[in-house]
């Protein structure tokens, strides 16, 4: 074998670059390393080729199965109608802008309320039992309550009380319902983060003379939040879609605009348009979440990758 022949060769020269800082991008200079690099490049090319062919075959099979299905012309007309898509796009985009504003408002409030509930639920000492119990009851109730039903209760029940100062706008009422539900989830994520910080950290902080509040703020929370950032962003992605549910309260958001166009034309294409816009909205968040996870992993592995 070629490899054995090379290994038998007398000279395996490793030249040291003249400048002190070794440049990793420099090509390897020994025969053996060059052979290794060639071999790896070859394997990589082969992998790429196999992946491409397999992807093309897979897509071809799926697309052929769909296009050759007897119902395809009807489905294409119903779900992929370009004319309907063009007509509905401006209204759906204006609806999506409402979704984005509600999303921004809700996300900020959820982080505040969620953190507060988590802090209350992790209070130590018997005297705080009622506070802990209330916080636990809140998370139990609002995680269990289906969002769509909560939207109805808040959206039609609250203004039904006819109290002065209760908002009547579906956007504000919808935001309240979303905040109630999502704060319950997010507070549990924060609590998991807080409880994952090793007790020795608290003990060390307290023994240095920090108060409970200082310990939480300076020692526990910074570590906790960093740890739960990926699941928090996951909840944010889920929230991006659930803001579409405020349409049941009468708000003209992207989902409702799609429904209006769909009902007017007896065609499902507007739903597809709205769905794809929501996906486009979620992708940046998903990429950011991935990047943060990678960075966190790298940071934790600082000083060695194994």
């Amino acid at each position: 074998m070629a490899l054995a022949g090379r290994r038998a060769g007398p000279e395996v020269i490793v030249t040291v670059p003249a400048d002190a800082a070794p440049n990793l991008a420099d090509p390897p200079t020994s025969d053996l390393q060059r052979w290794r690099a060639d071999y790896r490049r070859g394997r990589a090319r082969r992998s790429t080729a196999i992946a491409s062919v397999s992807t093309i075959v897979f897509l071809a099979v799926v697309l052929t199965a769909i296009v050759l299905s007897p119902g395809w012309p009807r489905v294409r007309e119903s779900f992929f109608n370009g004319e309907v898509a063009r007509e509905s796009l401006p209204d759906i985009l204006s609806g999506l802008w409402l979704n984005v504003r509600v999303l921004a408002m809700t996300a900020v409030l959820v982080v505040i309320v969620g953190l507060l509930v988590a802090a209350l639920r992790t209070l130590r000492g018997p005297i705080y039992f009622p506070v802990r119990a209330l916080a636990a009851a809140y998370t139990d109730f609002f995680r269990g309550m289906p969002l769509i039903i909560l939207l109805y209760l808040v959206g039609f029940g609250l203004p039904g009380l006819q109290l002065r100062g209760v908002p009547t706008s579906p956007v504000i009422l919808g935001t309240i319902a979303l905040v109630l539900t999502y704060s319950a989830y997010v507070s549990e994520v924060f609590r998991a983060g807080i409880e994952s910080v090793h007790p020795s950290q608290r003990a060390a902080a307290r023994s240095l003379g920090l108060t409970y509040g200082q310990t939480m703020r300076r020692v526990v929370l910074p570590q906790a939040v960093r740890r739960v950032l990926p699941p928090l962003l996951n909840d944010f992605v889920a929230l991006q879609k659930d803001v579409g549910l405020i349409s049941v309260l009468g708000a003209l958001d992207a989902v409702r605009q799609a429904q209006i166009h769909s009902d007017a034309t007896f065609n499902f294409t507007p739903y597809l348009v709205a769905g794809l816009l929501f996906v486009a909205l979620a992708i940046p968040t998903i990429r950011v979440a991935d990047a943060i996870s990678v960075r966190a992993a790298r940071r934790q592995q600082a000083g060695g990758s194994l």
Partner: protein
Amino acid sequence: MNRQAVRPLLALLAVTALMSACAPSDDNTEAATSKTPTASESASPSATPDACAKESLQTQSAGKLTIATDQPVFPPWFIDDKPENGKGYEGAVAAAVAKQLGFTPDEVTWTRVPFNNVFKPTPKNWDFDINEFSITAKRKQALDFSSPYYDVSQAVVTTKGSKAAGVTTLAGLKNLTIGAQVGTTSLDAIKSVIDTSKSPRVYNSNHDVVSALKNGQIDALVTDLPTAFYMSAVQLPKGKIVGQLPSGGGTPEQFGLVLEKNSPLTTCVSQAVDALRADGTLDSLVDQWLSQGGAPVLK
């Protein structure tokens, strides 16, 4: 080829096999839809009255007529959410159309189909659907409509004490918050006839619209005139009809029975509706079930 490459290839083959395994179920639908081309030939406009004899009607199940509507349905269109009792204007019209086509009440089956399912791209299991469907050119591209069985106008409903209660002109409604049910032409009327400056509120059902009006979340609602009379008399204790809206674009809005696109029945069902209009049945059913009390047309 090494062993590692074989396994994914097998997986790919399995996926392919799965795809072709789907085919038999597609064949079934093909059999079901293949009725349509032959059917549409007999449904050409030149169909003779004989082609509409009960025996030659190509209904979903032979000798039976399957009529669809939503659930729940409301007065004055249906009574007690029981379309089969023949009460309410649409309940009575459906019964009359069935009779005109030659079906006895025993041969009529009702099925409940949500709004969205009426136009989904799958073979239908009903012959026609009656549920206050307004006839529009866009909708005709997706489904067939029969001849119209009711000329409808849109009306504005509010409660005493609301900002809309004293309004007597179209312009007076312009700066109010107005609601309607999604999928209705009432919503189009808010946009095109009233042309509100605030964006309209759009709800899933008329029940939600009424709740919002009671709560003071909207100043007024728009719905078809018969429903407006029902709401102001029954559902809203302090209800008040502000007035009718002039029809946008000059053409009156009409309700039609909905049929599958190119249904073999469209011509015959239309003939039945036309006959009921000609012999005065439709008019007497309107008198029986729909309040025709005066409501001023807003200008």
